[in-house]
């Protein structure tokens, strides 16, 4: 028996769920149980955004509102939070009573931003989150970021982008945040969720020691963080996941701090928060952070999850490895650290022991002479999986490479350092000749796969190309090296 039901704020009141299986998705709950069909299923894998909803959470006594994909979010993860869907928008400030639409909705109508309309509720919710989080109209780049997880096949996006300034031209409305925080307050003092249904357990510890104990007690249970990958095991592979331990309710895991020892990112920090911190620590992360999955996936997913998942195509790992990141692992009360590259043993096999979990990532302070870059190469700018993701951290003193750390994803069974190339470069004069040869060494260091994202030859070629780019960026003078920075004249 469950200690208590799942409880969350929905449609102005606390909703209790006692009988849904722990892997029931928020989208299934909405469409099939609540008969709220405004939220659509387009792909059931978090890649199209038709199911976008907004989740509200008390973070530091403020209501944090973030767009996520309902299709891969398990219902128990809503415990203690607030759920907003497209049906809620017209009700804000009583707009629904007067028959008016929310400003983002009215703007979408005014700019002719819907055609078939199937993706529109998802866009409305992404825009709603953007609107609530920005008192002033955000710039176009921020709009594109907010919409990076929403696909539209009809409009070509121009009117949707134009809807944002149009929404800000209307009288501003806003959620009654204090009322929602007040409604959430009683949920915060409930005992941790230990939910059982359909012979499956969903345990959500509320502290690091509780998590460590639960993990040790049930080493075979699946550890769930953002669920942006595990969600697909359910919706696509129809797998039975067994018992789940949810890491998302442990405050220590979400902590991020910077001090003299560097940057510490708790394994449960969302990718959104983690990349904000990483980009502040090292601005060269900014472009990759923006292109990593999409806003809703970064809001739900965690950096710890990306790293622990160990996918050969994870985009955070090459850069983290190049920067000398240590992974912090905890088992019971034992805490140990490993260089991140040593965490990966083979394809989808890590150094994680039974009962152990990823607690944090520790990025050490970077030497002043080190130049760092990380790039992903994919077919599409937004929300794509890399064909190749590469990272370079080179120290050059008096024209000589004193240290080289190069790591790649997408070119081997795990994220991997290019040790032969690193060795080749170290001690060499940093110049065109060295780079030309090193690019060849790099291109031949890996034996990547041919697949639907790219051929092995392309991947090798691009690995070398990125080293050239790294070199040219420092030496090309006024010639441009970055497509994203090309100026466009109207």
């Amino acid at each position: 028996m469950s200690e208590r039901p799942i409880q969350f704020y929905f449609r102005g009141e606390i909703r209790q769920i006692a009988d849904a299986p722990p892997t029931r998705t928020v989208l299934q709950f909405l469409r099939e149980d609540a008969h709220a069909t405004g939220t659509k299923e387009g792909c059931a894998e978090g890649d199209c955004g038709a199911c976008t909803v907004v989740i509200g959470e008390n973070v530091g006594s403020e209501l944090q509102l973030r767009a996520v994909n309902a299709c891969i979010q398990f219902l128990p993860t809503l415990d203690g939070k607030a759920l907003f869907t497209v049906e809620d928008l017209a009700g804000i400030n009583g707009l629904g009573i007067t028959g008016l639409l929310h400003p983002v909705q009215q703007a979408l109508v005014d700019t002719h931003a819907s055609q078939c309309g199937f993706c529109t509720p998802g866009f409305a919710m992404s825009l709603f989150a953007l609107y609530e989080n920005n008192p002033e109209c955000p710039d176009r780049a921020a709009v594109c970021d907010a919409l990076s997880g929403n696909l539209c096949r009809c409009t070509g996006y121009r009117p949707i982008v134009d809807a944002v300034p149009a929404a800000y031209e209307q009288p501003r409305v806003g959620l009654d945040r204090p009322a929602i925080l007040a409604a959430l307050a009683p949920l915060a003092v409930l005992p941790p969720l230990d939910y059982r249904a359909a012979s499956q357990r969903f345990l959500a510890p509320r502290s690091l020691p509780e998590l460590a104990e639960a993990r040790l007690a049930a080493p075979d249970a699946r550890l769930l963080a953002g669920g942006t990958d595990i969600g697909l095991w359910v919706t696509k592979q129809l797998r039975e996941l067994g018992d789940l331990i949810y890491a998302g309710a442990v405050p220590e895991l979400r902590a991020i701090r910077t001090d003299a020892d560097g940057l510490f990112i708790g394994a449960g920090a969302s990718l959104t928060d983690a990349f904000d911190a990483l980009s502040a620590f090292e601005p060269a992360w900014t472009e990759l952070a923006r292109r990593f999955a999409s806003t809703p996936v970064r809001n739900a997913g965690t950096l710890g999850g990306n790293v622990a998942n160990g996918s050969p195509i994870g985009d955070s790992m090459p850069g983290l490895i190049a920067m000398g990141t240590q992974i912090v692992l905890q088992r019971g009360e034992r805490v140990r650290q490993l260089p991140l590259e040593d965490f990966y043993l083979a394809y989808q096999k890590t150094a994680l022991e039974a009962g152990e979990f990823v607690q944090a990532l520790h990025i050490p302070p970077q030497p002043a002479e080190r130049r760092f870059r990380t790039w992903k190469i994919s077919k599409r700018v937004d929300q794509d999986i890399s064909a190749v993701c590469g990272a370079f951290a080179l120290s050059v003193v008096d024209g000589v490479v004193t240290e080289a750390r190069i790591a790649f994803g997408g070119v081997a069974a795990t994220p991997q350092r290019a040790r032969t190339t690193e060795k080749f470069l170290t001690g060499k004069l940093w110049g065109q000749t060295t780079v030309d040869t090193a690019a060849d060494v790099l291109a031949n260091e890996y034996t990547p796969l041919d697949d639907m994202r790219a051929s092995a030859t392309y991947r090798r070629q691009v690995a070398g190309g990125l080293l050239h780019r790294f070199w040219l960026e420092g030496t090309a003078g006024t010639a441009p090296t970055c497509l994203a920075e090309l100026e466009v004249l109207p």
Partner: protein
Amino acid sequence: MNAPNHNPPPAVGAGLPHESAHLHVSGRATYVDDIPVPAGTLHAALGLSNIAHGRIKTLDLSAVRAAPGVRAVITADDIPGINDCGPVKHDDPILCDGEILFHGQPLFAVAADSYELARKAARLARIEVMPLPALLTAEAAAEAESWVLPPVEVSRGDAVAALEAAPHRLRGEVQLGGQEHFYLEGQIACAIPLEDDTMRVLTSTQHPTEMQHMVAHALGWRMHQVTAECRRMGGGFGGKESQSAQIACIAAVLARLSGRAVKLRLDRDDDMRITGKRHDFHIEYDVGFDDAGRIAGLKLLLASRCGFSADLSGPVNDRAIFHADNAYYLDAVSILSLRGRTHTVSNTAFRGFGGPQGMFAIETVIDDIARHLGRDPLAVRQANFYGDSAGSERNVTHYGMKVEDNVIQPLVAQLATDARYAERRAAIDAFNAASPLLKKGLALTPVKFGISFTATFYNQAGALVHVYNDGTVLVSHGGTEMGQGLYTKVRQIVAQEFGLPIDDVRLSSTDTSRVPNTSATAASSGTDLNGKAAQAACQAIRRRIAGFVAEQLGVSDDTVVFAAGMVSAPGFDAPFASVVADAYRARVQLWDAGFYKTPKIHYDPVTMQGRPFYYFSYGAALAEVAIDTLTGENRVLRVDILHDVGRSINPAIDIGQIEGGFIQGMGWLTTEELVYQPDGPQAGRLATHAPSTYKIPAVSDLPPVFNVRLFDNANVEDSIHRSKAVGEPPLMLAFSVFFALRDAVAAALGPGARPQLDAPATPEAILRALHGGRL
């Protein structure tokens, strides 16, 4: 009821919002999966093949039948009527009949208490298959002479002689990829059994009559036993013209056998594996031309991958032939069209319907000519344009149709001036000279697109207009709404006829029990056909009301005017609603049906000569791009479009179609890559079966500068309010992006280079082209 507005703007020509926009944005627009179902409704799922070609030895479904919640399981043997859903040739099994024809082919279907239980059960089958050799590509099919339909050759003049006599001659080949529709709403149907052997099918389809027809055949019934209904689709793009039939048929068969309503909604991955896509083409050319780049003779091979069945591949490939001229006069020309039968999904209609593939071929030829001669590609394009409609000899197409409405020269000239082509060409040359790593490219490409179904009998439509006795109007017609704004435009047309505010007119769902024998909403023709039919019905009703008013006043009928919510005549001015109420009491018929058939069109399908099109739509686009020569990554920097929609019924909707079509075309030619496993035990498996691996344009692909304008040009033909069709033609404006990318690659390769750039121009394809065609 809203009070009549006495000063509404004229409905036709106004940029009104989509009639469902307020529902779209609030989640209140209902799609098939949102409609409340009857109690006891079952949910269906399909069992798919995991081999491209083979014979089923064992299909053991005992575990499927025994799975929790399962209520019905069917194979081909359980279909009471005909196991076929092919729209033209009857070679499209609803469920596999023993020989597996492609990887992902539905073998059986299961209906269970929930969607989840049905999907889980469908994976429990034990299947043994004897593998057979599989043909997977257009080239492989051509080599094996494996056709879904026989090859077709169309020629004019002596192409071989012209080639030999020409001062210059080039040969080339290029691959052009297919395209997944990726409608956001996947395929879905809900079949509801009703009394006395009848069935109501709620279906997301562009072709309700075809669904009615196919469901009746599958059930062994006649058409009056089945009604098919569609209020709206969450996108169609051609993918729900014939492909929705299999879904509707399976739902209906399960519903009939179980006696319960059955909903079949495809999971996205299943949808992408099962349903047909845009045909990919292998193109070869041999062209002769003069010093100006003007084509003297052309031999063209258009070999397509049609997949396992004919589906609509015949008319798709015919349209490729018809559009192999794009906007260019081809004097001596010979086109060979091969319709390859392969063990892959059956390719189908997709916005443009073969036209884009034919046009891509000639654009490649023209671009190569320009690069070979070292001339500006725009100049070569202009040198080859059809002549003025009046007087010129260069104005008859290779299929014998005179081009009577040509505006391509002034349209292109206006765009080149407005968007400063020459100045920007010079600026890009200067940029490229100073930029070794990044290269820019520029291209201005034209579009001429023929409007009408090439199957002439399809060019008909019906509508049913009810004026209720409170003065409100309900319209039914045979066209379907997939987001293109058809309902909105018809609403405007009807409001205009009665002089009513737009809110007084509503559109009902498209339902075969209200308007029968409808044509597919396709070929960009929805408004042309259904708008005219609705107008005809309105005019019949209006004539009766006018006659009633005139008789009372003793004036002539033609003095009665319908405007601004009022009916007026000399000495008479009354609200439409009150006139209608009086007319009703005087027993005047206030509803009527309207019918329309497109005039002038005819052609001989054997010789492929005649006038298959009522008129042409024109447009042009100028794109500026940049590429990274180290990685092949690219970016579209700016796009300028000038497009001919005739006299626009709704400029906001038309601009939406142009922008959306352009971006969709850009996706086809850049990021959207369909990859089939080339070999091994999973040969023929679609590897890009989800949005994680198949990349349609996302928001950052929107060009930062995107100027779209309408070209002022009333239709010379008597189309509805002199407008022009707009659904498909803008897709081909995206050639400008592809050829700008080619221009950038050419800039990197140096003078005279003809880049071997295949489509889609992914970063890898671009890098390959930068390395001379192979990595």
